């Protein structure tokens, strides 16, 4: 108890400075002069949010902080791995976003001072904000699987951030002899793109069936169930009979360690030496979220489901893969939908209003083969402090649908990618 009375000189000055700042800039002033919103992270979440903020209120000073000049999209990158698509089709720039009045700063954010409301950048400069949006995506945990660090990833690619890693996995598959063993290690929940490992298994199997038909694909999984499971397993039987084997957690599928020197994945039940090993490690929110004080003990960011404001860091909103969005999966569609709701809430908060209770939608398509699409959809609303499924809505594609239905969903998957990337970057 006594500790609260022992305020250090530094804490006292800090509190005093904050009070002075509050007096000097009373809240209504933000509505008069242009309020400043800084968005960190130029992926589907951050870029959507920056654009939406500017569209809702052109007077807002919106800054998008993203060190990469080119964004490389993850959705459809499994097609690149399977040789069905070029990496160039995954690449997008920020010129149109900048032309729309968003200040795009090609720097990495290195620190956030939540009390002073400033963001420090790698070049030593800083940005002041009234509201900060973090959309940093995921960091891969190179401390989670023994032996799986960044050096090991150069041998056993994760390909869970699109770019060089995507091309590395593709090259390894191309270099593999017919009859080789490909192993995918899938993480426990939560992680970016829940159906991703299983779509990847399908499209790699499609490549193997076409080019190296004596090869096998093994999925070592740290869980017992996965997204669109029945649809994927039906597709494996129908399209790639005998080629894909899935080992669940309870069957000993959890990878605990790897040996990059020998391309070996180690579980409690034995070792698997692969010709090509794709290790998708556990993940957490991008590092800047932790620096900003927005992560909890899980490594992810708890948020208010109405405003996406952090539950631990005031005036800081977290969207996309980094946030704990309850029932909403970590997808590009979710990030984009959350970005638009978050932007509207921020504009309302800045103008002194109360944000309306939102509803959000997610739709995720996966390809089991070219021309064979399956989907999961959901509708979400705030409930008990989380984003919960609206009961009776959502679900996966029917298990007994005719092939024509799968063809249409594959077509809609392509349309979705064209539309969302146009909305975000075009």
């Amino acid at each position: 108890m006594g500790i609260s009375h022992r305020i250090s000189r530094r804490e006292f000055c800090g509190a005093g400075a904050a009070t002075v700042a509050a007096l000097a800039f009373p809240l209504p002033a933000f509505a008069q002069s242009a309020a400043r919103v800084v968005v960190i992270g130029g992926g589907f979440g951050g870029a959507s949010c920056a654009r939406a903020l500017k569209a809702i209120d052109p007077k807002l000073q919106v800054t998008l902080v993203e060190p990469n000049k080119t964004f490389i999209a993850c959705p459809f990158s499994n097609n690149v791995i399977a040789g069905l698509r070029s990496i160039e089709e995954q690449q997008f720039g920020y010129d149109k976003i900048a032309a729309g009045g968003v200040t795009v700063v090609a720097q990495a954010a290195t620190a956030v001072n939540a009390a002073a409301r400033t963001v420090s950048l790698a070049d030593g400069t800083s940005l002041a904000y009234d509201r900060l949006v973090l959309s940093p995506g995921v960091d891969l945990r190179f401390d989670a699987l023994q032996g799986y660090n960044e050096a090991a990833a150069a041998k056993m690619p994760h390909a869970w951030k699109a770019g060089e890693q995507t091309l590395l996995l593709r090259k390894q598959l191309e270099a593999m002899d017919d009859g080789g063993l490909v192993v995918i290690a899938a993480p426990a929940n939560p992680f970016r793109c829940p159906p991703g490992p299983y779509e990847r298994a399908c499209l790699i199997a499609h490549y193997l069936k076409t080019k190296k038909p004596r090869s096998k694909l093994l999925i070592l999984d740290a869980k017992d169930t996965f997204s669109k499971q029945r649809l994927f397993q039906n597709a494996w039987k129908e399209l790639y009979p005998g080629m894909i084997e899935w080992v669940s957690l309870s069957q000993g599928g959890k990878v605990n360690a790897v040996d990059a020197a020998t391309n070996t994945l180690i579980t409690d039940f034995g070792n698997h030496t692969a010709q090509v090993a794709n290790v998708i490690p556990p993940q957490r929110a991008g590092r800047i979220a932790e620096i900003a004080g927005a992560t909890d003990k899980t490594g992810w960011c708890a948020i208010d489901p109405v405003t996406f404001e952090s539950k631990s860091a005031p005036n800081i909103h977290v969207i996309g893969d980094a946030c704990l969005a309850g029932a909403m999966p970590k997808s590009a569609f979710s990030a984009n939908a959350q970005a638009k709701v978050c932007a509207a809430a921020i504009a309302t908060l800045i103008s002194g209003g109360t944000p309306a209770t939102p509803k959000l939608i997610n739709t995720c398509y996966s390809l089991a083969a070219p021309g064979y699409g399956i989907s999961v959809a959901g509708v979400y609303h705030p409930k008990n402090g989380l984003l919960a499924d609206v009961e009776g809505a959502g679900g996966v594609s029917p298990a007994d649908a005719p092939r024509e239905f799968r063809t249409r969903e594959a077509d809609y998957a392509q349309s979705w990618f064209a539309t969302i990337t146009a909305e975000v970057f075009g």
Partner: protein
Amino acid sequence: MKALCVAVAIATVMASSPPVLAASEPPPGAASCSGCHTSGAAAATTSVSRLYGRDAGDIMTAMTGFRDGSLPATVMNRIAKGFTDDELRAIAAWLAAQK
């Protein structure tokens, strides 16, 4: 000529008037639609229908049809079930008012 001047004057006033946040803010759920349904004029042509500027009654008819299963769908039936009539009406009106 005079009529043209008046029209130009009105257009100028409308263009320069400050944005009213409440008027442009999408009702619950509506912001998600443009994830699949094109919103911008520059967007690529796709097989998914554009909703902005469509007749509100047509959107409402489609959504209630998807929801009760009387209209065939791949994914819109699963999504429509997440919305009440009032919510759908608000979404349809907002989409119809977008350019």
